[in-house]
């Protein structure tokens, strides 16, 4: 292996960076070259057989691709960008990854160290600019500091609650010489990513759960990040506790499981929201009580004792005070509590959820997936995608109505099968994230569900699909509107549709320009076969579905309302 050949040898800082990435078992990098990162790209030239570089069309695309990659593997996504505009273009993706606890390592080139602070060409203080949105960042000005900085970066990005880190490397550090060695980072004395499970806390939680009549589990992204799916299943089954998932928690608990009751939050399912205010013990696992989940906190689960399983101490008591907090990795915590949990059956409590599901079916779901309207509706498209894919594909979404519909109507049975932007709600996330997810999981079908607005925010990444031959399936739900904003304008701004109507290009022609085949559907009769064709295409494919222009996503918890005040219809 090259590692041994180069170990202890003199190399440039740029080559040391590439070697360090190989020592971290990085195989794929998303990036875009430019002046200040040229020595690294030059070193990469000799390592193309071991390190696959995907040339994106905009640096933001690299970050979202890295996020997509990370979310389906747990491995940190790696990004290269140059200084100045290259680096500032990363900020949206970094903020998105940080808010959604996605491990990501960004490497940026920087002007030579003697130029720092002189407003040199393409100099920005990217360490300063990215500070509020990174878990950690560092500027390296000497070749010998590159490998240790990379080791620390990977450790910090992946340990504890994962996040985005950035390593900024000056051009002279890339050119400089150093003797290459690599030591993986396993400990930083000021950093405690992995709290030891406290037996007292576990006991207190178990006591509350064993005494509970109507316990209720809220499952978040932490379950996926800690690979606690099996432990959660055993725990829920043992004590017969209903489980609902947050947006980022979807796919952590199989949708077909009898204890699965649905999706939480503003556009989530009816029962999971309403019954939050009827449970007696609320068991939150690896989630952070985002405002899209809680609605008005003064009307949230006031009757319930709250147990919060959480790895990040700053999340405990941040929004919803916990009666018992179990600090630690979700999987370790659940494995610790399992032996203390008593077997119970709760048919009456579960029936409450089933009743709510029936109401939601009557009022919302049945009409949405079998509409009588002339125009196609988003939910029926997702429902048909579910059938065409047999629920097997990885679903990547952008942000907006189509995202809520995909989250509501696709049934996620396999872990890490939904990639979406939750905390930051970044339009333009979808297309590059789908590219990253497909590169990470080439044997899986990856279907991007995207709206006409978000698609155009990063549409240039069709070039990445073309150049790197990434067979992503693009399901474009086109209503020629910024649908979610339009919905709010309709409901809360007196139908004053201020700049939400879109004059769109011919998307099929654009795709064709990038060598991507596609089709457009506007008739219900053609939908199934069009979806089948898209799904079974060996290459990238764009299916544009013309949907109802003024469809609203329901149910909805309006801003300021409590979860129990969820509206089923207008």
């Amino acid at each position, binding site marked *: 292996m090259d590692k041994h050949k180069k170990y202890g040898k003199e190399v440039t800082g740029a080559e040391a960076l590439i070697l360090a990435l190989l020592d971290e*078992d990085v*195989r794929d990098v998303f990036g875009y070259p430019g002046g200040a990162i040229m020595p690294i790209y030059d070193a990469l030239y000799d390592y193309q057989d071991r390190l696959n570089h995907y040339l994106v069309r905009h640096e933001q695309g690299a970050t979202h691709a890295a996020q997509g990659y990370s979310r*389906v*593997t*747990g*491995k940190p996504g790696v990004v290269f960008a140059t200084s100045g505009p290259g680096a500032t273009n990363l900020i949206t993706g970094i903020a998105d990854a940080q808010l959604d606890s996605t491990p990501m390592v960004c490497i940026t080139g920087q002007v030579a160290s003697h130029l720092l602070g002189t407003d040199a060409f393409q100099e920005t203080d990217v*360490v*300063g600019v990215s*500070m*509020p949105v990174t*878990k*950690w960042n560092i*500027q390296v000005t000497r070749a010998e500091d590159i490998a240790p900085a990379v080791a620390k970066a*990977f*450790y*910090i990005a*992946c*340990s*504890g609650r994962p996040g985005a880190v950035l390593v900024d490397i000056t051009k002279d550090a890339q050119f400089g010489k150093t003797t290459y060695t690599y030591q993986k980072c*396993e*400990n*930083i*004395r*000021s*950093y*405690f*990513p*992995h709290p*030891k499970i406290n037996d007292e806390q576990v006991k207190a939680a178990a006591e509350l759960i064993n005494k509970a009549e109507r316990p209720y589990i809220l499952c978040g992204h932490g379950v996926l990040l800690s*690979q606690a799916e099996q432990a959660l299943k055993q725990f829920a089954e043992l004590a017969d506790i209903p489980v609902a998932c947050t947006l980022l928690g979807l796919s952590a608990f199989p949708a077909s499981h009898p204890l699965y009751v649905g999706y939480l939050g503003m556009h989530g399912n009816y029962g999971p929201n309403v019954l939050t205010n009827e449970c007696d013990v609320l068991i939150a696992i690896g989630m952070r009580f985002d405002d899209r989940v809680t609605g008005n906190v003064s009307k949230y689960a006031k009757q319930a004792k709250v147990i919060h399983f959480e790895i*990040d*101490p*700053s999340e405990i*008591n*941040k929004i919803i005070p916990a009666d018992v907090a179990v600090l630690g990795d979700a999987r370790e915590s659940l494995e610790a509590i399992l032996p203390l949990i008593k077997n119970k059956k709760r048919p009456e409590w579960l029936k409450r959820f089933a009743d709510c599901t029936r109401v939601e079916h009557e009022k919302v779901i049945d009409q949405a997936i079998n509409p009588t309207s002339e125009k196609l509706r988003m939910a029926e498209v997702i429902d048909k995608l579910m059938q065409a894919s047999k629920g097997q594909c990885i679903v990547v979404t952008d942000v907006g109505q189509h995202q809520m519909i995909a989250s509501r109507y696709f049934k996620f049975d396999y*872990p*890490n099968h939904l990639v979406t932007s939750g905390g930051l709600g970044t339009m333009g996330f979808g297309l590059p994230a789908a590219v990253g997810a497909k590169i*990470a*999981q080439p044997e899986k079908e990856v279907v991007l569900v995207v709206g006409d607005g978000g698609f155009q925010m990063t549409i240039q990444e069709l070039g990445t699909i073309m150049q790197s031959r990434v067979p992503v399936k693009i399901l474009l739900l086109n209503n020629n509107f910024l649908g979610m904003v339009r919905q709010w304008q309709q409901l809360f701004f007196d139908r004053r549709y201020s700049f939400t109507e879109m004059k769109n290009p011919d998307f099929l022609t654009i795709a064709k320009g990038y060598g991507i085949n596609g089709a457009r559907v506007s008739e219900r009769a053609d939908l199934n076969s069009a979806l089948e064709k898209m799904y079974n295409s060996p290459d990238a494919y764009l299916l544009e579905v013309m949907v109802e222009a003024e469809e609203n996503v329901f149910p909805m918890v309006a801003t300021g309302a409590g979860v129990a005040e969820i509206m089923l219809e207008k």
Partner: protein
Amino acid sequence: MQVKTTYNISVFTEDIIGLLNRITIIFTRRHINIESITASEIEVKGIYRYTIVVTVTEEQVAKLVKQMDKQVEVLKAFYHTNDEIIAREIALYKISANALKADNLFSKVVQKHHAQILNITSEFIVVEKTGDEKEITQLFNDLEQFEVLEFVRSGRVAVTRPMKTLTTYLKELENNTKTTIKYFNQNL
């Protein structure tokens, strides 16, 4: 509505460029004003202590301290009320030399406040005072009659009354277990 109190936050950190910025943005993002801030190396080499004074509710200060603890290079952050610390500030007052013309009134003021004269020139006198914020402000008020040309105060430095020190924490940190990372997909 919870009551706001003055809290003294002590943040123990590694010696890292830019870390102070990471700490201060925790306050600015929440629109909380820092009343004073000082930073210096402590008894353990390479470890720095920031003393930050804020007036907030206890819920707020607890959340602020957790956010600081979350920073990778922060060893530990604590908060204390004024009763739990022993604190001092230092202040310098630059007074017009005309003050000396007013008989010995000026020296009496300086003596009464247990302040010291650091420097005298033909144009100005520099007075130094160590004390709490109140004492420093009182001296300022008494000196105003002599024309204060410049006034500067250091911000609070403090030691805490509780005996558990950072060194005890540092020992606990040595037992900090190693963490190895596992990805879901080991094939990659």
